[in-house]
């Protein structure tokens, strides 16, 4: 009996505090690893939580998974970067209120010896063709993330099929993929923010950048509240509004400048997607 009492006492001290219980006003944000790994969300989310007096549950996964979660009503708001896939979901009526938030860009990194001669390439299609010759390994995210989806689109547009022992399908986040590339002397496509944040420990240089196709566009949107009665529509919409508010946009425009010498993202709420894409076409 004494032992049972001891066990009960132990269990009750271990029991979680009342604050740990589920709160109905929690906002579930499904987003990409790049927004978390660069530290942007760690700075932004507390500001929003303070203003809305709610808790944000940030689930950092690939864009593919973030969209899939949102499309099932398992998230209240998504912050993602795969415009073609996003537009398809919106057309299906799964999401509403899609708003442009910010941009940065993708860069092609690789070993400084550059065996595939990427530095000589003038266009993205040329870069892809050189990579497709397989003179050096290429490390792909292979995880349906926004970065992976863009990479697959680039192969397709250049008419090159990425196949062979040189094409490494890592299946992990951006940081892990960059480290695999660095260890194996491979090329990789990465968002500039993650590369800058991890550059110190990597034997990788930027070999190609600046092409309009490599623009990385982030949107925020909320699951269609008509389809999902359990979604916290108010909270999700409030977070979306917060991301495009002018104060937040100014903060995004400064973020990372102190640590990396240049901001990691460019605020874009005031811009139109068509204009960005026209520049890219």
């Amino acid at each position, binding site marked *: 009996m004494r032992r049972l009492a001891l*066990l009960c006492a*132990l*269990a009750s001290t*271990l*029991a*979680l505090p009342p604050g*740990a*219980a*589920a709160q*109905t006003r*929690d906002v*579930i944000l499904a987003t990409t*690893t790049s927004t*978390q*790994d660069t530290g942007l969300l*760690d700075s932004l989310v507390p500001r929003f939580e303070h203003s809305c007096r709610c*808790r944000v*549950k*940030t*689930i*950092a996964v690939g864009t593919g998974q973030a969209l899939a979660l949102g499309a*099932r*009503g*398992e998230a209240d708001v998504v912050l993602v970067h795969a415009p073609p896939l996003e537009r398809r979901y919106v057309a299906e009526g799964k999401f509403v209120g899609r708003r442009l938030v910010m941009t940065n860009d993708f860069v092609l990194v690789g070993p400084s010896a550059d065996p595939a001669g990427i530095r000589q390439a003038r266009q993205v299609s040329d870069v892809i063709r050189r990579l497709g010759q397989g003179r050096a390994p290429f490390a792909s995210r292979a995880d349906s993330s926004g970065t992976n989806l863009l990479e697959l689109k680039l192969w397709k547009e250049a008419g090159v099929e990425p196949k062979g022992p040189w094409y490494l399908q890592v299946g992990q*986040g951006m*940081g*892990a993929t960059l*480290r695999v590339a660095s260890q194996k002397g491979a090329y990789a496509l990465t968002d500039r923010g993650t590369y800058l*944040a*991890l550059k*110190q*420990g990597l034997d990788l240089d930027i070999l190609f950048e600046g092409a309009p196709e490599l623009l990385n566009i982030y949107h925020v949107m909320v699951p269609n509240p008509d389809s*999902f009665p*359990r*979604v916290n529509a108010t909270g999700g919409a409030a977070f979306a509004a917060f991301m495009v508010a002018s104060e937040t946009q100014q903060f995004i425009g400064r973020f990372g400048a102190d640590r990396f010498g240049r901001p990691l993202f460019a605020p874009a709420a005031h811009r139109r997607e068509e204009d960005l894409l026209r520049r890219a076409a």
Partner: protein
Amino acid sequence: MELIFRGIRHAFELLLRGDPEVMAIMWLSLRVSGLATALSLVIGVPTGMGLALRRFPGRTLLLAAINSGMGLPPVVVGLVASILLWRTGPLGFLDLLYTPAAIVAAQFALAVPVVAGLTAAAVQQLDPRLQVQLAGLGASRLQTLAWLLHEARLPLLAAVMAGFGAVISEVGASMMVGGNILHYTRVLTTATVLETAKGNFDVAIALSVVLLAATFCVTMIVTAVQQRGARPA
């Protein structure tokens, strides 16, 4: 190599300074895994005893299922638990996904087979004449069970340590059902994964050392209790 030393030094700095962030993550890990282990004892010990002492059809099959459950992959448990706990899932009304309680539930499912399987083995290796003797002395059923548990206390405490060790060290289920949310569901293992992804290897090593130290302290306490109960040879 230098990185490992830097990580270990960093770990001691964090521990000695009592870094509030790391301390909070450590306490959450200990509370979640401790509670999951305690709950698994409540279900696992009676299940194990039942399997050891009773004979019924399908007993061997059930025992085999529990024994293979000792190697239950955390990601599989995490995936099934996520699907059950989704808002659109059968248990969605509980609003448990991405909460510490969800991690407790998943870790409970991981620990129960370990505790039940090891309890069954511990009770079965007791001398079968002990039961007969207890009955002959006029012990009630409850008294008999209590005495058997007492006799098997050394392997039972080993079962506690095995269960706790399995759940505090797993990352797959905690990541999937907890979501690795800062100040809420971020435990030592998921924090280690995140810091590795961020390239903060020294912090990741420091968190690993904290995890090992915390696990060692808990196991040390249980071992001390166990050895106090051991008869000198």
